[in-house]
């Protein structure tokens, strides 16, 4: 994949790690509204990438392009290329349902299904044909352990998922996604609706998970981006009504200490100051 090496966007460091997702010249439309334009970047495997930027700058929209979640919204259109492990995500013969199993997603609002904790975690594996109880038991336990929730819920697995606290619910949702063994985990502001102690737990969890999963997180919280991510992408819509662009993409340490673009610097110092 030579094209991954000559990425046209500014500020991208030479690819020193394995690239998981490659995006080239992506444009996105909601009906007549042109939401994103000219997005190109390489997301490294087994790392945490943070998407930052002001509200309404298309971070979440871009995130949903990566697992074709936007397909569910009528009237949307994607142009450009998204490659997952070198394979075109929007190519013919790609089943979005299968893609979403490989590219899991965590939402801002914890969204356990109205069923038991066990059934929540077993939901994905059951969809994909796992029927044997012992096998499901193992998957449920392993997934809850990986999500650091097992100790808290191991005796109440038959209780409703909605009886848990907000932070526990979010970790249950993470366990539920991990149960289908995704390669990539998309997190859309996963901490903005939960309490600070739980935020800490989820940030710790991300650090543990990145050894096996590629994580992309959208966050409004600069400090959080600085704490958890290896690389950061800064999105900006410069004028109302115009499409948003990817201004700068690079190592988090560099973006936060010596951004190359004046707009990135203004945003970051504005937020910190």
């Amino acid at each position, binding site marked *: 994949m030579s094209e991954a090496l000559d990425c046209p966007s500014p500020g991208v460091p030479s690819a020193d790690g394995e690239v998981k997702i490659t995006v080239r010249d992506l444009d996105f439309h909601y009906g007549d509204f042109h939401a994103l334009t000219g997005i190109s970047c390489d997301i490294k495997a087994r790392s945490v990438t943070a998407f930052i930027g002001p509200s309404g700058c298309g971070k979440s929209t871009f995130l949903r392009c990566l697992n074709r979640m936007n397909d569910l919204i009528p009237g949307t259109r994607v142009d450009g290329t998204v490659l997952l492990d070198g394979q075109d995500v929007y190519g013919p013969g790609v089943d979005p349902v299968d893609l979403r199993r490989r590219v899991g997603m965590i939402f801002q609002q914890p969204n*356990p299904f*109205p069923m038991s904790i066990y059934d929540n975690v077993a*939901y994905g594996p059951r969809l994909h044909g796992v029927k044997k109880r012992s096998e499901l038991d193992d998957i449920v336990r392993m997934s809850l352990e990986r999500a650091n929730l097992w100790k808290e819920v191991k005796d109440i697995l038959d209780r409703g998922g909605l009886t848990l606290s907000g932070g526990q619910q979010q970790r249950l949702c993470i366990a*539920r*996604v991990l149960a289908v063994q995704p390669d990539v985990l998309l997190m859309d502001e996963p901490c903005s609706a939960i309490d600070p102690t739980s935020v800490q737990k989820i940030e710790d969890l991300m650090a543990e998970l990145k050894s096996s999963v590629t994580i992309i997180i959208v966050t409004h919280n600069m400090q959080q981006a600085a704490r958890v991510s290896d690389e950061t992408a800064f999105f900006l819509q410069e004028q109302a009504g115009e499409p948003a662009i990817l201004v700068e993409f690079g190592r988090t340490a560099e973006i936060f200490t010596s951004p190359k673009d004046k707009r990135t610097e203004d945003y970051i110092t504005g937020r910190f100051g």
Partner: protein
Amino acid sequence: MKRDAKNLTNAAALAVFWLAGLTTVVVLGAVIGYVLVNGVGEIGLEFIFTNPHGVNAEGGIWPTIVATLYVTGLAMLIVTPVAVLAAVYLAEYAVQGRLVRTIRFAADTLASVPSIVMGLFGLALFVESMGFGFSVISGALALSFLMLPIVMRTTEEAIRAVPKYIRWGSYGLGASKWQTVSRVVLPAAASRIITGIILSAGRAVGETAVVIFTMGTMINLPVLPTDPGRSMTVHLYQLAMEGINMPAAFGTALLLMAMVLAFNLSARWLLRRNRRMQG
């Protein structure tokens, strides 16, 4: 001075509102009280569980209770799959456009068709053309027409009330649309759907015009769906209007009200329990 006038107007308005509100309660209380006073003396095990006999229909009303529950239950069985599937289509699959608006408008209009017209239609279609005769099945089919729009619309609302982000969670795990609808959305909406079904059943129990046209007036214990029967409402009508047995009419009325109330209360109970579980 001016202030006093203002306060006076305010108090007067308040009194009017209060009286209007009170009227509702008084009317309800009067109806229930009157039926209760006149009917409670009749009701006993014998009244509920024995057959009427003699020229003045003395004894009990058991066959009419069976016929009422039979026809209502059968109508629920018929209406539930059709209404739920139609609602799933409208809420989840249909492209929201002209066709869907037409279906919704048709459902709302169907709900306001006078029940006697529905009875006439049931008589023409099920009793005569299709040859089911005066029977429980004819009654159930005609009643299901009456219940269909209610169940369909409440089911559609229940499905729409399931939050979008819960569906996304399912899609995000690689579920197809049907898997999401059948495994997450319908279970999440189930108690509200059941509430709608129970409320419509309450309406069916109290329905008179439709069943008099389709199930007939014969007092017998219906066994097969093709047997005729007399519902409690029809029995009540005949007892009272033909002056046969007023006390038994009030007894029947009281029992009928108790049944409708039971339906409504169980629907409310289900909704409340559900809210507690999800809250």
